[in-house]
């Protein structure tokens, strides 16, 4: 049979890929990382990439604070300043908190439900590579005339071509589309994984809270991201092809952008916080040696928060002139959403009350979350009330609020997760003293940075201005905030030193360093590729704890002899031939298509778009036709 050159070279490429795939299956070398479909490796890649973006976002923050330290600052000009805060916000939200949460979904959820991997391992790898492509694409804007400068929320028509002629906004819109695809894929994957791949006996109400929050967050993702996608498409069609969605000259309204953006944007902030809340719900019981107080309430309040998060978005638009009826309705719904959050706080306090508490770093971080988040939540309540929001809107009070909940909340929660779970995946504990130093420096630095901003906001200092005049009463608070920012930076340095030191010289963790309650602590650290030698049969919530301890008459735990994890799985289960999915290059290949398509559109090079489509299709077809495991 005669083969054409195209067929011949395609077959050559495919054969080469097959050989590399066989090598990747040995778990050795760089190709094994590039082709991995193992949720643990994907989780590690997410975590490292997200942390690097965290450093980038942090540098952006320091630049902003340097510029604002004194009135009439000369560090950054207007244009650069606008790019700086746009990139800082976009980075921290889409390239740090979301992927760090995804890192934990990947690392922890399959272990907590007793599974060997996620439902769609190649789709999982695809999510990671697409995330990386999106982040790199977004940052490459610097080399094409400048980063986006329209804020992380991209309000149109400011972001329309007429007012923003460079490429920056196109990089922003298309970059977020790529990131959106990554998140959507992840959302579908984790919902199916959690619904379908639980170990025998693990009913939904026996699942750990972190897994529950992953499920809820994934639903938020799949319903919120499509709305953003439409808004971004409309903006791109306006900018690239002359459509009129937000063109005021043809009757386009800025309100359409705001509705679409915030219909996504509000659920998005709960996407950012619920995973961290899930982490707190894991850490508190472990370090208080008590079960989570009011487990059903914590679970259902998470569901309630997610549900209600779709009903409050107009509170970002109180001052746009929608009228008193709309404002009041959403004011009420926004006040109401504080209720399930309060339920969680009280249940966390109930967990700690009367517990046998060990103040290790994960717990400190979790306590930091609770205290800081309560403050942030209270400022949120002040926002919910329309009259007070009228003064607060577009001031530093808002900046204080969202940093309080996203840094004081999400970042502290995510660090709790890092200190808690890093030992499981690396086999080594992080140094406890450095951890405590990190915590206190970060807590103090955080408060020194952001509490002054509440005052600044109440004094009327607007957001998104690159400088301010002296004599407004703002000088001192800005200087203090800048000092705080550098304290935060110092704390992160301590963390980095801790990681580098501990990965080499840290104390060996063993399977269960914290005397944990959930299934991930029942297997060795680091975790073998197949996770569980035998899939466990689950008899109760916190099943692993019950294998380790019985309770005496006073309710105190008494160790069961040989009930712990000692590297050998003592649990009953089904002995199975362990059949793991094979590595694959096609997720990466498919992911490569997206930036090519995006660059093509930005540069109006449609041949490049076509190439990108071909690459994407090659990746997808290769993936579809390749056996999942061989």
């Amino acid at each position, binding site marked *: 049979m005669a083969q054409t050159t195209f067929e011949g070279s395609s077959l050559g490429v495919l054969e080469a890929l097959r050989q590399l795939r066989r090598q990747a299956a040995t778990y050795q070398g760089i190709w094994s990382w590039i082709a991995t479909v193992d949720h643990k490796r994907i989780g590690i890649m997410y975590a490292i990439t997200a942390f690097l973006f965290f450093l980038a976002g942090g540098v952006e923050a320091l630049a902003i604070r340097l510029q604002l330290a004194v009135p009439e600052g000369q560090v950054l000009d207007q244009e650069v300043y606008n790019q700086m805060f746009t990139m800082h916000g976009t980075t921290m939200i889409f390239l740090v908190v979301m992927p760090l949460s995804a890192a934990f979904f990947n690392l922890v959820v399959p272990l907590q439900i007793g599974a060997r991997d996620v*439902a*769609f391992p190649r789709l999982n790898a695809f999510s990671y590579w697409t995330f990386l492509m999106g982040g790199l694409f977004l940052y490459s804007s610097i080399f094409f005339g400048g980063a986006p400068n329209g804020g992380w929320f991209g309000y149109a028509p400011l972001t329309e071509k007429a007012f923003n002629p460079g490429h920056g906004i196109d990089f922003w819109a298309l970059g977020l589309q790529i990131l959106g695809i990554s998140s*959507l894929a992840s*959302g*579908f*994957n984790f*919902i*199916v994984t959690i*619904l*379908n*791949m*639980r170990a025998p006996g*693990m009913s939904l109400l026996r699942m750990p809270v972190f897994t529950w929050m992953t499920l809820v967050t994934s639903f938020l993702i*799949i*319903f*919120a*991201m*499509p*709305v953003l*996608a*439409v*808004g971004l*498409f*409309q903006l791109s*069609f*306006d900018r690239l*092809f*002359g*459509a*009129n*969605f937000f063109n005021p000259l*043809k*009757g*386009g*309204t800025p309100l*359409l952008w705001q509705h*679409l953006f915030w*219909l996504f944007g509000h659920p998005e902030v709960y996407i950012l916080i619920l995973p961290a809340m899930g982490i707190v719900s894991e850490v508190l019981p472990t370090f208080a040696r008590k079960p989570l107080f009011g487990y059903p309430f914590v679970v259902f309040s998470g569901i309630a928060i997610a549900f209600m998060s779709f009903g409050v978005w107009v509170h970002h638009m109180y001052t746009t002139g929608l009228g008193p009826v709309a404002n009041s309705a959403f004011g009420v719904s926004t006040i109401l959403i504080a209720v399930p959050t309060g339920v969680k706080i009280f249940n966390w306090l109930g967990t700690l009350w009367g517990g046998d508490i060990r103040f290790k770093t994960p717990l400190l971080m979790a306590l930091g979350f609770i205290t800081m988040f309560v403050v942030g939540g209270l400022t949120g309540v002040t926002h919910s009330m329309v009259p007070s929001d009228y003064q607060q809107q577009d001031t530093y009070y808002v900046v204080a609020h969202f940093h309080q909940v996203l840094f004081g909340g999400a970042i502290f929660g995510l660090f709790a997760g890092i200190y808690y779970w890093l030992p499981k995946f690396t086999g080594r504990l992080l140094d406890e003293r450095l951890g405590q130093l990190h915590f206190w420096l970060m807590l103090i630095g955080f408060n020194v940075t952001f509490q002054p901003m509440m005052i600044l906001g109440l004094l009327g200092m607007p957001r998104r201005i690159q400088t301010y005049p002296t004599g407004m009463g703002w000088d001192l608070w800005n200087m203090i905030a800048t000092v705080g920012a550098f304290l935060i930076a110092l704390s992160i340095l301590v963390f980095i030193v801790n990681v580098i030191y501990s990965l080499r010289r840290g104390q060996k963790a063993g399977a269960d360093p914290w005397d944990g309650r959930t299934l991930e602590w029942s297997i060795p650290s680091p975790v073998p590729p197949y996770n569980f030698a035998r899939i466990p049969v689950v008899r109760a919530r916190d099943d692993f704890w019950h294998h380790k301890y019985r309770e005496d008459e006073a309710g105190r735990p008494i160790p069961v002899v040989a009930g712990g994890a000692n590297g050998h799985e003592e649990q009953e289960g089904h002995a199975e031939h362990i*059949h793991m999915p094979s590595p694959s290059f096609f997720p990466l290949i498919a992911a490569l298509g997206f930036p090519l398509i995006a660059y093509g559109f930005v540069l109006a090079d449609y041949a490049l778009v076509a190439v990108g489509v071909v690459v994407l299709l090659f990746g997808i*077809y290769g*993936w*579809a*036709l*390749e*056996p*999942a*495991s061989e």
Partner: protein
Amino acid sequence: MAQRAHVAEHLETSTGLDNRKLAMWLFLASEALFFGSLIATYLLYRGQSQEGPYPHDVFNIPFTSVSSFILLMSSTTMALAVGAAHRGRLHQMRTWLLCTALLGISFLAGQAFEFTEFVHKGLTLSSNLFGSSFYVLTGFHGAHVSVGVLILLSLWVMAARGRIGQHNALNVELAGLYWHFVDIVWILIFTLVYLLDPLAGGGA
């Protein structure tokens, strides 16, 4: 749609439902938000264009009705293809798959013709709010149909090579779910955009 059948037979999922079928329904639920946003945008801007062409200047309801019939028929042939796949009637399955794809292509041809006519009458993406919201809504729908046609033709080719059968009929079923969804989006578009055009007297 890879050959997961071997591994799948050993999986017993917690819900008893197939992973991929569950994923497809989640995807379709999420697509409701996508098309909902596009339709809402169209409805927001309906009647708001400051200059023409307006819908009644360009719409050809008889023509679009025929396109709509074609797409509805394609759903029927798709359902027949899925039924044939489940019953192991592979020749029928291939025939119905091809019919569905061809009907889909006819629909797309109709759209292309229609859009060309509209452009000739002066309605472009940039003309006004109607042009922008109409072309982007129907354009994304058409893009979804195109992807569907690609999937159907791929299945047909794979079936011709003996790789689709009763044991992996799920692949055809999944394609069917996607295809029917794209059809019901058109049902909504045909009604809300074409039939309920305000200046021809069609509703608020």
